[in-house]
């Protein structure tokens, strides 16, 4: 299995540090509505988690079967979260 180089690991580290700073900076920015703020923060967190999984845990280099073994079960809570958000939105409708 081909693994990423040390240079790539350090690039991912820099990306993770910048994204963390961006997240923290975002919450101090005035004038951002709650909805877009939540969407942005969750989006950045998913990107950061994906970077760790794909590059540090080498999921990028694994076979399709192993990737699916990991990804498919993890879609279940994600789907449940989407249903929860949709249900909450439905209740708030006039």
């Amino acid at each position, binding site marked *: 299995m081909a693994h990423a180089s040390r240079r790539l690991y350090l690039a991912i580290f820099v990306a993770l*540090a910048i994204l963390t700073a961006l997240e*923290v900076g975002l919450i101090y920015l005035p004038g951002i509505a709650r909805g877009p703020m939540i969407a942005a*923060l969750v989006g950045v967190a998913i990107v950061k988690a994906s970077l*760790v999984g794909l590059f540090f*845990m080498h999921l990028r280099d694994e076979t399709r079967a192993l990737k699916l073994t990991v990804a498919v079960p993890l879609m279940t*809570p994600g789907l449940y979260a989407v249903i929860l958000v949709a249900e909450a939105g439905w209740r708030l409708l006039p």
Partner: protein
Amino acid sequence: MTSWPRDEQFGTASSGKIGMWIFLVSDALSFAGLLLAYAILRGGAVLWRHPGEPPLGVNFTAGLTFLLICSSVTMVLGYASALDGRRREASVWLALTALGGVLFLCGQYQEYFGIWSPGLTREGLVLGGSAYASTFYVITSFHGAHVLSGVVFILVTLVRWLRGTATSAQVELLGLFWHFVDLIWILVFTFVYLLP
């Protein structure tokens, strides 16, 4: 490095690696359950943080997050060194990773109980006092237990590595667990500390 016969579906992934991934997925589902419960409780609460309860320290915890990211880098560099057969270098990276974990746990202790300043427990955030307090302590301490397990796992592997009884494949399994701990913290930090 341990060689493993190529499988049609899983390539050269060892049974140990497949087993570790399945364990991590099941563990991730435990965290997902806690985070979903947190979302349901928070979404349905009229008042989330009650008067007298302190806010969470975002800046301090951002530092802990950065520390855990640093420890993930030292872990992956340790694995790269182990794969290249640089035993001494790999040992140093693993030791630094364990140090990162210990510092994270010290940070969590400071946050809960206080070392140089009053912790959340003394500021009025009491387990069982509210859903805000209980979800915070349950989720972060469950993660903290993972960090503690990870530190023990690193130290055991480091001793075995120094004795020459651990392989780079075993360092890779250790790395999977440690990066998972980092990955989960990234999500916990956002959901518990950052979301408005």
